[in-house]
């Protein structure tokens, strides 16, 4: 019995030590990863500064016409930094195409930010001291929120139900993707599919951007809004212009 108790004590002690060792290793691994990401962050800041200053020649000539619809998702906590949001919108206004206007679809802004953003929309901006833009065109802005995603599909479903099922039906309807698209348009939640979606937040995650509109959208994580750089915006667009999609 004593031997049995001793063995149990030893096993229990070994188990506790083993667990502690695992926890310690896990903490060390995550510490190393955090250091690694910090180093990556510094490297990115240097790169973005070089891009913004025009020293990296490959980023000076971007075929911006490939981006017809640009979407931006801003994490709701990050979006409280109104000055940063407005700075981002001015940057978006500054990278317009000379001949065509672009549409920017923004998710994550509150009411007062939307009002201020709408004012920026109507202004022309001249980018000074930069090689990335000269006289620029207007930018159309569309604001979306979570209501434009799943709840919108439910509303579209109700419209289709009322249209196809409300009266006595002779033949069972067979819905298609066009029916859903038209219904979304009819209930006020239609809109273009963005080519590129930029995520400003801590994680690469589209945060519920309307599902129906991001089938083939390139989703790029820029990083936290508070540390955003103009160079990272240019880099994301430059990378997008090199992408080739098969659609099949």
């Amino acid at each position, binding site marked *: 019995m004593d031997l049995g108790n001793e063995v149990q004590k030893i096993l229990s002690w070994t*188990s506790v030590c083993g*667990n502690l060792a*695992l*926890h310690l*290793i*896990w903490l060390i*691994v*995550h510490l190393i*990863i*955090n250091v690694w990401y910090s180093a990556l962050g510094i490297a990115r800041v240097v790169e973005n500064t070089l891009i913004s200053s025009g020293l990296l020649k490959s980023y000076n000539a971007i075929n911006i016409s490939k981006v017809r619809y640009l979407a931006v998702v801003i994490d*709701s906590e990050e979006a409280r930094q109104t000055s940063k949001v407005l700075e981002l919108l001015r940057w978006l206004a500054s990278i317009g195409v000379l001949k065509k206007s672009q549409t920017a679809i923004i998710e994550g802004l509150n009411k007062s930010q939307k009002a201020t953003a709408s004012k920026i929309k109507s202004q022309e901006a001249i980018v000074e001291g930069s090689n990335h833009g000269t006289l620029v065109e207007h930018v159309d802005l569309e604001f979306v929120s*979570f209501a434009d*995603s*799943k*709840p919108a*599909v*439910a*509303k*579209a*479903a*109700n419209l*289709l*139900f*009322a249209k*196809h*099922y*409300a009266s006595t*039906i002779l033949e*069972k*309807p*067979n*819905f*298609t*993707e066009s*029916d*859903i698209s038209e219904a979304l348009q009819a209930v006020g939640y239609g809109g273009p599919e963005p080519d590129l979606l930029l995520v400003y937040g*801590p*994680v*690469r*995650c*589209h*945060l*519920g951007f309307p*599902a*129906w509109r*991001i*089938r*083939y*959208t*390139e*989703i*790029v*994580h820029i990083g936290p809004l508070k540390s955003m750089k103009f160079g990272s915006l240019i880099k994301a667009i430059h990378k997008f212009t090199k*992408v080739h*999609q098969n*659609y*099949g």
Partner: protein
Amino acid sequence: MTIQSEKVDLGARSCISSRVDMEGVNGKSVGHLFENISSFVRQCIFSVLNVGPVPSHIAFIMDGNRRYSKKQNLLDGDGHRAGFSALINMLKYCYELGVKYTTVYAFSIDNFKRRPGEVASLMKLMQEKIDELTQEESIVNRLGIRIYFQGNLKLLSDCVRSAAERAMVKTSGNSRAVLSICVAYTSTDEIVHAVQESCEEIWDDIRKREVNNAEGNFVGLKENGKDENEHRVGLTDVDRHLYMSVCPDPDIIIRTSGATRLSNFLLWQSAHCLLYSPTALWPEIGLRHLIRVILDFQRNFLYLKAKKKQS
């Protein structure tokens, strides 16, 4: 669940998985030794990872089989076979780690646009692999994995569809993990299907009430002066009728080949999901990629959890 019992469970999963590996190595002792060492190293790594939160559902977009085939100068179709081996490895790693749900994007509705010869060859390979998976001694049955085929299965040929249905029936008794194979699937098609099913269900309800209500004429259906047909389809109705309603929303979506788009995959379910795009082609995906994304997930777990709660 205490740490002790988690470790035992992790150890048990690892043992079952390594027994499956050993039996597959045809009795070569060097192969056995290598597999044993690999399994032990994996168990140690997964023991460390299990200290933190582990995702319950990981989804994979298996991109890059054809490019792998060209890169390695393989015959057409061999890239997809290599991709299948990578899938089995990933499935095994997810199982050993304790990830209960795994989803793979095997064949999109858009893929039917490829050359007919390539589509036929893919369908034939799919049928062959489905039959292999459902054999008694297959990894799926040894590990207790239940298989679902999600998508518009009516678009598949009869033999592939029958093979898929047989696989779902044969594995219906398995309960340790779930593998969802998205075939003839797109997210938009899934949403259309869910909307249609939701409308059908509500219409059937109305008709049943009409039959049961002796007065009829929709008298019993009007409430608060409003026509009850308004806003009948709710968000939960659409959610319930999605193909993927058998699983929770994914925690991580991994798309190989460096592409940053979802290509019409799990768009509805991925609102608060970590997206990861390693540059490796699908057949080149390995344990290191899984470890990397799990560590990323753990770093951002509290943020993602808070976002899910907000929605």
